């Protein structure tokens, strides 16, 4: 996107890094926060 602060590649890099450190388990039946 023109003039946007991130390209898709930058977004991908940041998103992958952030997902890596998500600490989530369980699902729609078992909840833990």
């Amino acid at each position: 996107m023109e003039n946007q602060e991130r390209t898709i590649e930058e977004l991908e890099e940041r998103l992958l890094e952030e997902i890596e450190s998500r600490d989530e388990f369980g699902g729609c039946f078992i909840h833990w926060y």
Partner: protein
Amino acid sequence: MYNLKFSDYVIVVKNFKETGYNVIQGYLGNFDVFDLRLGKKILDKDYSIFDEPDHVIEYLKKRGYLCSVNEDEEKWVEKVGDILHRKASEKYHISIIPTYECNFQCTYCYEEYYNARKKGTMNKTMVDKIFSTLEKLDREVDSNIGLFGGEPLLSRNEDLIRYIVHTGSQYGYHFYAASNGFDIEYFDDILNPANIFMVQTTLDGTSEYHNLVRYFIGKKPTFDKIVQNVNRLLQNNVKVTIRTNVSKRNLDELPKLIEFYYEQGWLKNLNFNYYFSPLDNCANYNSVKIFNQNDIYSYLEQFENLPNKPVEIVGIYSNLYRRMKQYKEDGRLLLLQSEACQGNRNGLYIDYKGDLYTCCNLVGTQYICGNIEEKKLIFKDSYWCWNKRTVSVMEKCRRCKYALFCGGGCTAKAVRNEYDIMEGNCGNMKSIINECIRNL
């Protein structure tokens, strides 16, 4: 400025205190709070916004609230959805069902109604087969493994459960369990942070109501025993979540339950969580009237002094809100998921026979999606269908600004009701997500 337009993927919600607008760019994950004047212009897509100073327009452009008139925004949703899905499906997320048998006779049990495999227990050969197979798969396995049932923590299966946990531990796995909470004392040695580190159990109300709907075989009461066991688990530093299945019949139990949790001292314990979930949002299986998340939410809103806001303790709200809040506080992108649940990202239930299911609502039914064979998993077409069901491939979802929060809606619901599973089902997700954002 004439080459700019408002993005179609901006979610604008007046904040809880009504002092401004919480604004999210739905495929870039940007979050901002704008004052009432500017926020309203974004909400209304009011083109007088272009009279704002250049630096404001620049900022709105950078954050993706304004974009080029030629921007292919659907393509962005597709790409971001693919990234999220690729990462979320990197691992298998495994749950083991040692048996479908249970020592409770809950009045509303969906497994009692649907499950055709009520008798039978996993043998140790199957346990060995499962762990040796997980070791050899094409992709990594999440180190947290669920135990599900029936009732996974039955006293008569204590040797088997101990065998599963000890064998799994040798491979580096830890366990969590969805249990009715009755036979807990038989598993004291494996209920600890290193083995079974978390247990979700259920209380449907205070003693009298709970014992009417969740009783032991022969209608024996269970409330006091479960409470005693929750205390035992917390003393062992095991994380505990208490779920409450809610229908119109037990709505008035909810404030009493919260009061009870407070009196027990559980609300001060960081290892304790609770939530209320409607009965049942997927299965339509018996005479219990379908009840939805919003009904519980509206009911709880009337109480002013609850220790938790409704958005923190009602089913899907709590799941989405707590993640959004955490990401916001950590300065992360607010992009949650491109699938509705783990069943769409390599979540698998392995039952005592070695058959595979994608969803806890479908276990023991004809909806088998594969089975475990020596050193490999054999999948049916249905598994691949579930696995590719993301908002990136669903046209209606790709056009929706809520897509990367909602994930396309419950797949099991589509299966049960024989909808096309590649059609998103929205339910009340729009209002649920708005409410979560309002509270950020």
